[in-house]
């Protein structure tokens, strides 16, 4: 598995061979500051799993870039030793697409919250999936707006009482899994911070997947969402492996995706490998080498051709 990733990661200049590369551990990915999340926040679990996945895959800090929007969860890039962009609320996927296409040799991991990604960021979410951009998108889905102190989110369950719905929400929530499948994502998974090892594997799978990978993670907010707590998910989540599931079957994926009740499945719902990622389809990248490092300017011949079009 690692071998595959190693060849994927081209360090500019020479491709370092595997033996030369020191293998890093989780602690090498510790960020400049410690998270300021509330004690017990699910996001700690996502951060830990992500660091573990990156270390397991033998990646180095400079080869990875995390890109987030704004929210408690979106603070993640500040807590991991990797390149990072902490962009505007809702815009992580748009920024990530630009960065990925500009330097497709980087491993880009978009991270954020349910509000960031499915609320204000919904349109980028939709279109990034249909384009199958080679990104790993980890949503810390706590079914609430945490940073703004507890309002309803697009994944909040009906009836949820929040500061903006003190008498209970009357809107139907989004279910990100079928939505992602219908929109064209090629790797669609759900994790739970209470299942660390499982989550690490889902993230590794997402990073290794060439194309758009969504990992929607139940990452409970201990402060503002008392309905969908760690306990709530602990009692209900079951691994798809255990239930029995074929992630290449559309029908099975859809069926499992709608399960919500005493059993809430986690794991890889859907994966297809027959669709190339956008960067693989883009002819300008076929020449090889990231755009970001190509020399600037127009050759004299090209300039001549451009001018001759005007004559």
């Amino acid at each position: 598995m690692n071998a595959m990733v190693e060849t994927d990661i081209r360090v500019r200049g020479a491709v370092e061979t595997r033996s030369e590369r020191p293998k890093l551990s989780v602690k090498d990915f510790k960020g400049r500051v410690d998270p300021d999340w509330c004690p017990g926040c699910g996001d700690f679990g996502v951060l830990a799993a992500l660091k573990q996945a990156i270390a397991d895959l033998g990646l180095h800090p400079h080869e990875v870039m995390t890109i987030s929007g704004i929210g408690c969860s979106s603070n993640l890039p500040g807590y991991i030793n990797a390149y990072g962009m902490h962009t505007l609320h809702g815009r992580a996927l748009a920024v990530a697409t630009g960065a990925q296409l500009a330097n497709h040799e980087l491993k880009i991991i978009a991270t954020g919250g349910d509000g960031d990604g499915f609320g204000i960021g919904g349109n980028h979410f939709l279109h990034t999936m249909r384009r199958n951009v080679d990104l790993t998108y980890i949503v810390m889905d706590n079914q609430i707006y945490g940073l703004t102190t507890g309002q309803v989110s697009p994944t909040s369950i009906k009836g949820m009482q929040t500061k903006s719905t003190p008498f209970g929400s009357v809107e139907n929530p989004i279910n990100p899994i079928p939505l992602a499948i219908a929109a064209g994502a090629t790797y669609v998974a759900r994790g739970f911070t209470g299942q660390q090892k499982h989550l690490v594997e889902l993230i590794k799978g997402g990073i290794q997947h060439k194309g758009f990978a969504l990992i929607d993670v139940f990452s409970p907010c201990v402060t503002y969402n008392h309905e969908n707590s760690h306990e709530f998910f602990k009692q209900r989540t079951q691994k798809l492996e255990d239930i029995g599931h074929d992630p290449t079957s559309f029908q099975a994926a859809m069926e499992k995706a709608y399960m919500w009740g005493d059993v809430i499945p986690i794991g890889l719902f859907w994966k297809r490998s027959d669709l190339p990622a956008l960067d693989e389809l883009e002819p300008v990248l076929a020449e090889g080498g990231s755009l970001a490092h190509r020399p600037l300017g127009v050759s004299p011949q090209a300039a001549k051709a451009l001018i001759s079009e005007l004559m």
Partner: protein
Amino acid sequence: MGKIDLAIGIGGAAGQGIATPGDILARIFVRRGLHLSAYNAYQSIIRGGHIFLTLRTSDEPVLSMGDKLDVLLPLNQDTMDRHLRLMGAGSLVLYNSDKIKPGAAAAGVQLCPFSVKELALNIKGDLVQNTIALAAVLRLIGVEFKILEEILTLQFGRKGEAVIAENVGVARAGYDYAGAHFKPFPFSLPDTGKKLGFFEGNQALAMGGAAAGVRFYCAYPMSPSSGVLHWMARHARQLGIMVRQVEDEIGVINMAIGAAHAGCRAMCATSGGGFALMSEGLGSAAMMEIPVVCIDVQRAGPATGVPTKTEQGDLWQVMGAGQGDYPRIIVAPTTILDCFKIVPQLFNLVDKFQCPGIIISDLLLSEGRSSVDPAELDFHVPIDRGEVIGLDGDIAPVNGGYQRYKITESGVSPRALPGTPGYVHVVATDEHDEDGVLISDEFTDPHKRQAAHEKRMRKMEGILALLEPPKLFGAGQAEVTLVGWGSTEGVIREAIEKLAEEEGIIANNLEIKWLVPLHADAITSILSKSKKVIIVENNYSGQFARYLRSETGIVADGHIRKYDGEPFMPHHIVDGVKKILAGETEKYVPVHEIMV
């Protein structure tokens, strides 16, 4: 203007094929080394309506579409009805008398009817009237038939000998008919021996981007900016530029920011409504200190407004874009050639100062066309990417000590491209410390906040020092200084010639190109010497006049404004200057005579 000053108007409905004869004429002019300016008045529909293309050529540079037409080619009755009344002595009107009837013409207007039925009995389709009219015009301005023959042969090349022969035959008939029946102009269109090209402003902006080394271009279609996207898309593979159409303008600016941060020179273009959606993103680029260039091609607003009409109504929007204060550069190119030249200059500045740059163009400039001397199109421009770590191979890793936002006197901190070993860091739209760690979280710190904010804003001084101050054009001693910004340069300068020639009024021009930061001192020192100052702008509220006052305190003596969607014609300005100098008004709003 030069010895030759010929303006041809071609009008009809959308779908009547106005573009082809227009292009052929333009091509013939510039291949003879004649200068050209062309402006197409059109509507937001695909078929029908009224389209009117003005082509003006001269042996001297053409500054605007001018005030008069020498030739009118009405392709339908509507065009005849709208424009005939504006034709003056010495002009001629060529029309298909089978379908179109002239009204009353002024004295000295030569009415030149031809019958398509007679000249092209067996040919189907409406386009034949265009070929005949084109051939007739060429005859009357003394262009040899073989030139048209060559063009038609090329144009119909793929359709086979028979079609070519048919079209050339019809053209010949029109050419000869005109020779036999109509009085030609008293000159033959000269050939200077030199060859020029022509392009529209959007093409110029795109080519400027290519010259600057843009590697990532993205956009959401929006008139009148889509031409940049179309040029980029056409040349993407040839030039190695990633061109993407995005889901919306918010996606556009953020995608461009992502690409720019990863190391590409990244550009995007839109018009007012799309720019509104980008405004939050522009502020974020400034906060993260990522260089990116965005073009706003203004059209008549507010809201959807008049999508195919020109205006300079976005200045305050562009200046106010996004919350809070942040460093940015705003430039309004003054000519189509300037559109080309400004882009690499701006990229060098934004790379150097790691901030967003905005080019504010308008429909007149972006969809207008102008001749260009190929020698002016220098693609070998200096490229300065500023202080960037990670563009070449030899970087000493700093292993964690790197401070992306180091506080410096210039406000600029060396940036490192993602992927560079040893320079790992996080950029953020939250306020942050020198090392990129947020100071909006956990412990906000007013002193650090103040220092970070001042660091960014200090860039504005460095930028201003590198911008060329505006220069007075024309007579040093003048009765009046006409101040404009961006696209009005040409028409103001033509009005100045007219004022001198026709009215004996000596005027000069101060055209502002670099808007933010503004050379307030230079402008004040120039205008303080002016006897009278009149500000000319293509909007309702005097957006530039108010800005100029806010930065310099200068209160103009008069204003000439237009906000009906059509660009200024020289005489609009001439009339305004006369009225204002005569003390009749302080604000003159011309009425556009031509109903386009």
